[in-house]
């Protein structure tokens, strides 16, 4: 295949980019080393996040795209329109739920406040004494590895996937592969997640480790994705280790329990103290979890930028290279919006929303 674009990485972001570029009429070669990444390790929650206007714009547009794709996706993508309940533990958090509702409303995202009795009716497994919740019904979940494969398959003959590891990007944009061969195309997209810094050490990306645990099948235990409203304060705006309550009902009836955040480590080992902290937090909201059987726990690395927004756009000085990296803990949600922006920039089309906040930043001006 004579490719017009090469995408490095077939995780959810690379797959979405290849899909969007194929839709724009490009012939795309995807190179993936099969070393795996965050797509296979994450929670797969599709959630509108509103820490800042740029994050809100990207997640909102992305979720609209996922919802449009969902009816055509295979069953193994495990898409579920379960919605999110942002749980308020006390009156302060309930006030935050109201502010969140106003922010979402201002951007056309549907949500509704549940008082304590309404929350107890919606999720009887939650502990008594919670203040209420904000329900965001448009949110959902999916199984990201299969969704990535599905996106690639949608490209038909326009997308070719090759099992290959890229060892280096030369000055003229030619790719050196591990088997000694080379590949080149007029445009190259770097979408290899946390591994991006091995090819471009200048990128301002650092790993943020996360633990997850999944239970055996207990259908009907919870109905929505449940996240504590304290999530933003406990997990986002801190440089230290943190945990937050986050539980997802999988279509299999299993419960996926998160989440933890740790900087300064790339060790994939499950750390019992961190896992214990995370589960204590979860049991504080869902006491019945303590009775359930866990099947597996694992870790993954999020590719974090200093401001939490992905880097989407032309690399400032590397020939032919475009960036789609740094999606941190929201890359499954934001993959379609990211891909839409990048494909528009690469093909000279007008993107559906402002690409400026995500433009590559924090890199040295020249090599």
């Amino acid at each position: 295949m004579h490719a017009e674009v090469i995408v490095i990485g077939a995780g959810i972001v690379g797959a979405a980019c290849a899909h969007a570029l194929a839709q724009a009429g490009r012939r795309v070669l995807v190179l993936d080393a099969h070393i795996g990444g965050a797509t296979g390790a994450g929670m797969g929650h599709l959630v509108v996040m509103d820490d800042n206007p740029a994050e809100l714009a990207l997640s909102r547009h992305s979720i609209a795209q996922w919802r449009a794709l969902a009816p055509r996706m295979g069953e193994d993508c495990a898409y579920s329109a379960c919605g999110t309940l942002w749980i308020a533990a006390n009156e302060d958090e309930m006030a935050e739920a109201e502010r969140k509702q106003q922010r979402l409303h201002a951007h056309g995202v549907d949500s509704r406040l549940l008082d304590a009795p309404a929350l107890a009716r919606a999720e009887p497994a939650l502990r008594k004494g919670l203040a209420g919740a904000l329900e965001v019904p448009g949110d959902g979940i999916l199984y990201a590895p299969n969704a990535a494969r599905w996106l690639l398959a949608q490209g038909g003959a326009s997308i070719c996937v090759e099992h290959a590891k890229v060892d280096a990007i030369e000055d003229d944009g030619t790719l050196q592969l591990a088997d000694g061969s080379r590949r080149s195309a007029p445009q190259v997209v770097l979408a290899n997640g946390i591994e991006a810094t091995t090819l471009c050490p200048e990128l301002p990306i650092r790993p943020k480790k996360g633990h997850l645990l999944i239970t055996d099948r207990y259908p009907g235990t919870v109905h929505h994705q449940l996240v504590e409203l304290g999530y933003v304060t406990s997990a986002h705006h801190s440089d230290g280790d943190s945990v937050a309550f986050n539980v997802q009902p999988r279509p299999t009836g299993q419960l996926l329990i998160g989440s933890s955040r740790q900087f300064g480590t790339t060790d994939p080992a499950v750390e019992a103290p961190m896992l214990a902290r995370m589960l204590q937090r979860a049991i504080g909201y869902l006491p019945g979890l303590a009775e359930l059987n866990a099947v597996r726990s694992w870790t993954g690395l999020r590719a974090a930028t200093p401001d939490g927004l992905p880097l989407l756009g032309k690399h400032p000085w590397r020939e032919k290279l475009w960036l789609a990296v740094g999606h941190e803990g929201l890359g499954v949600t934001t993959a379609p919006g990211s891909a839409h922006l990048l494909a528009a920039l690469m093909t000279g089309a007008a993107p559906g929303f402002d690409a400026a906040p995500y433009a590559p930043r924090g890199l040295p001006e020249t090599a």
Partner: protein
Amino acid sequence: MSVPTLLLQIDGQPVRVKAGSSVAAALRLAGGMGVARTSVTGQPRAPFCGMGVCQECRVLIDGRRRLACQAVCTEGLRVETSE
């Protein structure tokens, strides 16, 4: 000297095992492959590692989900292999 035995139920069927047997062993004695559960895609799954790692031997024991290879049979135990 005869070895003491226990009587338990697997999916409603009485099964007699030697005292000290694991539930995984009882599943095998009950017949066939010793199937413990059925996967999401409908495939039968049986004890595999025998040491609490693979999680393939999950069954309901007296109403609680447990690992058959890590549970020791007791008199009157009720084991269900449905899910």
